[in-house]
């Protein structure tokens, strides 16, 4: 069979090109009400009183305020349970929910919001994560909230500062002072990344209803059906089998829909209404629900004259906004990856997760890693320039190699990093003369590489069902968010059972039916769910062989499987199709066989030392960019970009390339123009009129996606994962190309806007411009 490594057509294609695909926003239930949310106009304020009497008196209107939830500990969060469904006594960002209304139409609900009176007392705000960490900062959460059971706690006290530091991470190796003492050059810089928007075109949406058993039914556009079920059960005091979470196709997520977001609010107001309630966020509300972590990275690096990096100290301040959400985990990941994919003897890496009065920062493609890669890969080219070493060569001299021990203690096996780096260098014509620029323009090239880990420990279950006619179902709670999971998972099953891919159907999540999956996050679906599905399919294969052995009167060891049949090796005429085996087994052409499997990764980092096993597999990637800069306006334009990722094994190469292309474009937007802007605590560009994302016009004139295949140990058929690999190196590759074009003038804060380019040139009078 050749199901693996083939760009088979996507299973969801016919639905998506015809508009038949169903998203959560398309859900209609009988008697369904529509919800709207009253949100805080203040970035930080005490809520003195909420008077919803007039709104509740309107016909057909149901209002939810904190007064309805006094019997619940309704604050939720996967790391810290700090985010109330609606404000209890305080609001912490512009857009923080204060009350919700349900009515027959969205318009009626919207109108009723006007009749809720809220009395606020504004409080001092803090918008910068480093300022918020200081001990004199205004505090957002004066009372520390309990840790969620799932979260391995980090002793935040070690990292304070103020109570705004809700989590921290530290790891070290060697002797930092000795390392810097042995260096010939020391580089010390600060890099900054602003919050950016996910841009999921399908807004967050959820429909909740309660039945007469007291069971909660939720249809949601979540990436985390299994965890949302857990979170809802926890909030409402239910058992897991009293909560059902169904996830239709998801119209874009990129991290914005990981773990509970709007589901607790919709469930709460549906409970009060006694009817199904639907909430679909407006675009402005999506901006208020999720963002990528802004980050300030202080990085100090000691280097010898020969280019050997001997010491690195990083302190990264992750801005998690008003609530922790996944911030403690994203900042931990960025923390231990802040040294980069390099052999560095002496390291001290620290990250801080800090509350500010911004919208909550949540998971975002790359999960805390692009922020530190922007810092270390930009600084790498400053080092190369100072030492007059080619930037590619400087990286070669320091790259981690097979069998190296990472700063966390993980041993890195078979990394495809050097191959990925060389591949983009070749595709980007590294070392050949840069094309001559038009008058008034300059052209430069830049390169960058990165390493990323996957969420560990985690587990995924898969249930494979063989029908009597030989067709197969996979039951899984992994979410089709556009990455092609329903296709790739069918491929690994088809390969294991030696049947055509078209004979396998992959379910969408329904937690009443589909087994646990940690979440569709962290580039883990092909790796973890794919492995569970492969193992489950192998169990079906075993059952078929055992049944066929007695039916064919042959030893199991003499049997093999091919093209949907079990046959006796050496005599293909002694063969039974899967359908025939089942019919003989049940005495009827009806029935099914089951194979279940759980794939579990083990590990985790010790909260005190920061060491242990960080990741079950590792992702390596590189990018090379050629950028043209308009010297008059400062505007940068990407002419060419080459990207590569070590995918372990490309199950579906076309879909792997699409992951690279999507990662590249998101990174390109973040590099050149994307930024969620705040002015005195007020977001000022929460609309697509003001927040631009890459369009076809921004696509580089030339784009390469290269797949490197260094097999992983545990992934199905050696697959690693590919969803986030390329997002990290692209922005620094572009930044390095801009700096090269400008003779070394460097922008250290994203985005690389025309103003910042001109300012960088001004500060570097010796630059070519």
């Amino acid at each position, binding site marked *: 069979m050749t199901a693996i490594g083939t*760009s088979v057509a996507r299973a969801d294609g016919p639905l998506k090109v015809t508009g038949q695909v169903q998203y959560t926003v398309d859900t209609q239930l009988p008697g369904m009400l529509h919800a709207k949310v009253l949100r805080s106009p203040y970035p930080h304020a005490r809520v003195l009183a909420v008077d919803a009497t007039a709104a509740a008196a309107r016909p057909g209107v149901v209002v939810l305020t904190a007064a309805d939830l006094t019997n619940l500990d309704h604050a939720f969060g996967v790391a810290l349970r700090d985010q109330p469904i609606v404000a209890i006594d305080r609001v912490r960002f512009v857009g923080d929910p204060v009350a919700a209304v349900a009515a027959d139409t969205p318009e009626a609900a919207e109108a009723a919001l006007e009749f809720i009176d809220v009395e606020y007392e504004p409080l001092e705000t803090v918008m910068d994560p480093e300022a918020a960490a200081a001990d004199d900062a205004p505090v957002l959460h004066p009372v520390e909230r309990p840790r969620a059971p799932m979260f391995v706690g980090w002793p935040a006290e070690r990292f304070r500062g103020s109570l705004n530091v809700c989590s921290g991470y530290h790891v070290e190796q060697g002797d930092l002072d000795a390392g810097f003492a042995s260096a010939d050059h020391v580089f010390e810089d600060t890099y900054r990344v602003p919050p950016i928007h996910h841009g999921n075109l399908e807004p967050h949406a959820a429909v909740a209803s309660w039945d007469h058993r007291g069971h909660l039914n939720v249809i949601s556009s979540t990436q985390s059906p299994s965890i949302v079920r857990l979170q809802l059960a926890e909030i409402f005091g239910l058992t897991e089998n009293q909560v059902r979470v169904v996830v239709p196709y998801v119209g*874009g997520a990129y991290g914005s829909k990981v773990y509970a977001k709007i589901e607790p609010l919709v469930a709460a107001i549906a409970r009060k209404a006694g009817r199904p309630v639907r909430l679909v966020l407006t675009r402005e509300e999506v901006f208020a629900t999720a963002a990528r972590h802004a980050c300030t990275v202080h990085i100090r690096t000691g280097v010898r004259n020969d280019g050997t990096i001997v010491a690195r100290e990083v302190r990264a301040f992750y801005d998690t906004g008003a609530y922790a959400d996944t911030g403690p985990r994203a900042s931990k990941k960025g923390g231990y990856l802040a040294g980069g994919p390099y052999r560095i003897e002496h390291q001290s890496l620290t990250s801080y997760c800090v509350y500010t009065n911004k919208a909550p920062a949540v998971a975002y493609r790359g999960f805390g890693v692009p922020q530190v890669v922007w810092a270390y890969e930009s600084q790498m080219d400053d080092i190369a320039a100072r030492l007059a070493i080619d930037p590619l060569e400087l990286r070669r001299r320091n790259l981690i190699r097979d069998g190296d021990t990472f700063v966390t203690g993980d041993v890195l096996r078979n990394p495809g990093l050097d191959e990925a780096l060389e591949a983009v260098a070749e595709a980007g014509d590294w070392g050949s003369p840069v094309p001559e620029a038009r008058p008034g323009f300059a052209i430069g090239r830049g390169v960058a590489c990165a390493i990323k880990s996957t969420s560990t420990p985690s587990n995924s279950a898969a249930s494979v069902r063989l029908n009597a006619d030989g067709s197969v179902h996979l039951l899984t709670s992994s979410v089709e968010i556009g990455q092609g999971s329903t296709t790739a998972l069918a491929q690994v099953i088809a390969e294991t059972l030696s049947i055509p891919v078209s004979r396998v159907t992959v379910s969408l999540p329904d937690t009443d039916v589909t087994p646990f999956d940690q979440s569709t996050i962290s580039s883990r679906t092909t790796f973890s769910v794919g492995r569970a599905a492969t193992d489950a399919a192998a169990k079906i294969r075993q059952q078929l062989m055992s049944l066929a052995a007695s039916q064919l009167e042959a030893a199991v060891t003499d049997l093999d499987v091919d093209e949907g049949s079990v046959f006796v090796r050496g005599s293909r005429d002694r063969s039974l199709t899967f359908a025939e085996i089942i019919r003989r087994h049940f005495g009827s052409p009806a029935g099914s066989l089951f194979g279940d499997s759980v794939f579990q990764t083990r590990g985790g980092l010790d909260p005190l030392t920061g060491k242990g096993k960080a990741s079950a597999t590792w992702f390596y990637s590189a990018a090379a960019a050629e950028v043209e800069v308009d010297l008059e306006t400062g505007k940068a334009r990407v002419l060419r970009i080459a990207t590569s990722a070590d995918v372990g094994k490309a199950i579906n190469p076309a879909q792997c390339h699409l992951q690279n292309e999507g990662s590249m474009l998101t990174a390109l937007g973040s590099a050149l123009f994307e930024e969620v802007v705040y002015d005195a605590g007020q977001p000022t560009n929460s609309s697509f009129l003001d927040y631009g994302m890459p369009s076809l016009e921004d696509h580089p004139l030339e*784009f390469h996606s290269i797949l490197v295949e260094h097999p992983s140990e545990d992934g199905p058929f050696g697959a690693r994962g590919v969803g986030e690999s390329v997002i990290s190196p692209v922005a620094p590759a572009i930044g390095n190309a801009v700096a090269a074009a400008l003779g070394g003038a460097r922008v250290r804060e994203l985005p690389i806007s025309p103003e910042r380019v001109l300012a960088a040139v001004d500060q570097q009078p010796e630059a070519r411009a």
Partner: protein
Amino acid sequence: MKVGVQINERELELEVATNSTLIDLLREDLGLRGTVEGCGVGVCGSCTVLVDGRPVSSCLVLAADVDGRVVTTIEGLGRNGALDPVQEAFLEHQAFQCGYCTAGMIMAVKGLLAENPRPSAAEAKDYLSGNICRCGTYEEVLGAVATAAASSDGGGD
């Protein structure tokens, strides 16, 4: 108010609110949910439909304004169970991921090919720059445009 409109080759007489948008008419009144909303301000292109053969953002058009016009949505493409050549080309090139922009993108390509049956890549990029695909499936969309343009009827109607 009353609106007389042809939608996907059906002549309809509809009662619409004066402030109702075309996307509300399509999705809520007629159940044509293949057209979806992304930004609500006419920027992302997810809600693109054809009005008199030209692509428009249905979130910005008032339902009242389609009186006397011909509207085509994604559900109106293809005949007798066969897909439209543009839909076939999107399948061939795997020119979609999450699919949320896809219906709008396909309708925009229909508009492009109707105006310009053999667009260059630069012309296609320019014409389709109002249709955002956050999954970033742009090269594949350009490939689909080229394939649809090369198909016998040019993909246009």
